[in-house]
C-alpha cells in the first residue's frame, strides 16, 4: 500500500480477490476497502479479471435432476414466505413508546394469524395423514392376501411336483388303473395345467405331446412331457395364445422333441363339454 493507504498494483487487488493474502495483510486490505469506494471499484475490476480463470474450466453439464430439486425448494420457500406472519421486522432502536406498542400489537396480530394458519395446516396434515394411513392399511391387507395365495400355490406345487410325493390313483374294486389325464384351461389368459397318471414310460426316442384342439383351425402344441415309473407326468403353464376357445385336448406319442402337428397315435383324448 502507498502512503495514502491505497493498494498500488492491480495484482494487489487480484491477490485479494483470489484469497491469497495472509492474515494481517488481508485484514489491512479489508479495513481499507470498507472506507474506500475507489478501491472497491478497482477490486470489482480485479474480480472480473480473476473470474476468467473460472471461465477457462472445461464445461460440465449440471446434473439433470438438480433443476427440479431447486424449483421444489423455491416453491417450499415461497409457501413459507406467503404468510405475513413470517415478515415481522426487528424494531430499530430509539423508537418511541407508542411505536413500540404498535409493533407489539402487530406482532400479536401476526402471531394470531400464524396460530390460525398453523391450526388449519395441522388439521389438513392430520386429514392427509388419516388418508395415507387408510391407504397403507388397504395395501397391507392386499399384500397379506397375496402372500397367502402365494404360500398356498407354493405348497400345492411342492406336493404336486416333488419327486418325493407319492401319487396314488384310486379306482373301484380290483379294477386295473387306466391311463388318465386332467387339463385345467383358462382361455382368456391361455393358462393351462395338465397332469396324467398311469401312462407307460416311453423309450428315449419318443415323447408324449399335449395338443389343444381349437374350435377352428389346426391343433396347437401345448408342450411335450414324459412320465415317471409310476406313469405320472404333465405340463405346467405352456406358452399358448390367449383367447383361444378349445373344443378338446389330446395326447399323442411323437418322436423325441415333438412335432408341430400331431403325427403319432392318440393315447388320451378329452372333449370340452
Amino acid at each position, binding site marked *: 500500500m502507498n502512503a495514502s493507504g491505497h493498494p498500488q498494483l*492491480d495484482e494487489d487487488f487480484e491477490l485479494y480477490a483470489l484469497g491469497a493474502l495472509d492474515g494481517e495483510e488481508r485484514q489491512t486490505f479489508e479495513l481499507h476497502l470498507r472506507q474506500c469506494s475507489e478501491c472497491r471499484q478497482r477490486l*470489482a475490476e480485479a474480480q472480473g479479471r480473476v473470474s476468467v480463470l473460472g471461465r477457462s474450466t472445461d464445461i460440465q453439464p449440471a446434473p439433470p435432476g438438480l433443476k427440479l*430439486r431447486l424449483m421444489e425448494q423455491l416453491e417450499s420457500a415461497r409457501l413459507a414466505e406467503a404468510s405475513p406472519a413470517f415478515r415481522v421486522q426487528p424494531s430499530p432502536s430509539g423508537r418511541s413508546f407508542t411505536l413500540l406498542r404498535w409493533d407489539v400489537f402487530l406482532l400479536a396480530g401476526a402471531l394470531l394469524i400464524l396460530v390460525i394458519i398453523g391450526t388449519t395446516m395441522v388439521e389438513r396434515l392430520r386429514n392427509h395423514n388419516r388418508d395415507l394411513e387408510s391407504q397403507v392399511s388397504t395395501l397391507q391387507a392386499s399384500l397379506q392376501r397375496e402372500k397367502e395365495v402365494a404360500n398356498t400355490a407354493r405348497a400345492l406345487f411342492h406336493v404336486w411336483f416333488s419327486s418325493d410325493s407319492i401319487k396314488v390313483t384310486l379306482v373301484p374294486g380290483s379294477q386295473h388303473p387306466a391311463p388318465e389325464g386332467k387339463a385345467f384351461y383358462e382361455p382368456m389368459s391361455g393358462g393351462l395345467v395338465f397332469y396324467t397318471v398311469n401312462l407307460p414310460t416311453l423309450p428315449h426316442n419318443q415323447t408324449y405331446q399335449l395338443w389343444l384342439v381349437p374350435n377352428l383351425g389346426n391343433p396347437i402344441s401345448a408342450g411335450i412331457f414324459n412320465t415317471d415309473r409310476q406313469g405320472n407326468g404333465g405340463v405346467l403353464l405352456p406358452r399358448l395364445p390367449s383367447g383361444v376357445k378349445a373344443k378338446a385336448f389330446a395326447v399323442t406319442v411323437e418322436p423325441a422333441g415333438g412335432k408341430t402337428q400331431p403325427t403319432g397315435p392318440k393315447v388320451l383324448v378329452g372333449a370340452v363339454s
Partner: protein
Amino acid sequence: MAPSIQIKPEEQGADLRLMQRIAAGDQAALATLYDRYSSALYSVAKRVLTDTGAAEEILQDVFLQVWRNASRFDPQRGSLSGWLLVTTRNRAIDRLRRRSSQGLDPAAEELVMPRASLETSAAQDEMMARVKAALGALAPGQREALEMAYFEGLTHTEIAERSGEPLGTVKTRLRTALQVLKKALNP
C-alpha cells in the same frame, strides 16, 4: 476437448430483464436463468470440490441467493454472470476448506460486483483464446501457484507449504502469473 465456459455479453441485457422478473417472484424466470448459467457454474464448483453432490449443493445455494436477493441486483455495479461466477467459486472454496467466509469479507461482497469488459461474443471468444494460450505458456510453477490459489483457495503461505517453495518465490510466481493474465486480457 470439452468446451470452455462461455457467458455471452449480449445476454447481459436479458439477465437484467430476468432479474426483474425474478424479483417479482417469477419462478419461470429463475428457471431460464438456471438454464443459462447452471453448466458454467456447476463446472467451476465441480472443479473446486471434485465432488458431484457438494457441487450440486453449492449451485442450489447460489440460485436460492439469486431468488432471495434479485431485487438488489444493480447492473450499473457489474455483470450478473461475473457475480454468479465469483460467488459460486467463493462458496465452493468455503466448502472445500470448511470455513464460514472466504477471501472477500461479507460486507465487501455486498458492495463489489465484478465487472466484465466484454463487448461482443466474438471479442469474448478471442479473449478466452488469449487467456488459455497465456495460461498454457506459464511456467509450471507459476501455473500451479495460480491454480492452487483459484481452485483451492490457498493463501501465499499455504501454497509455499504445499509446494515446498520459499514464501517469496510463491509471491513472485503468483504476481507474475497475474501480470500475464492481465496482459492477455488487455493486449
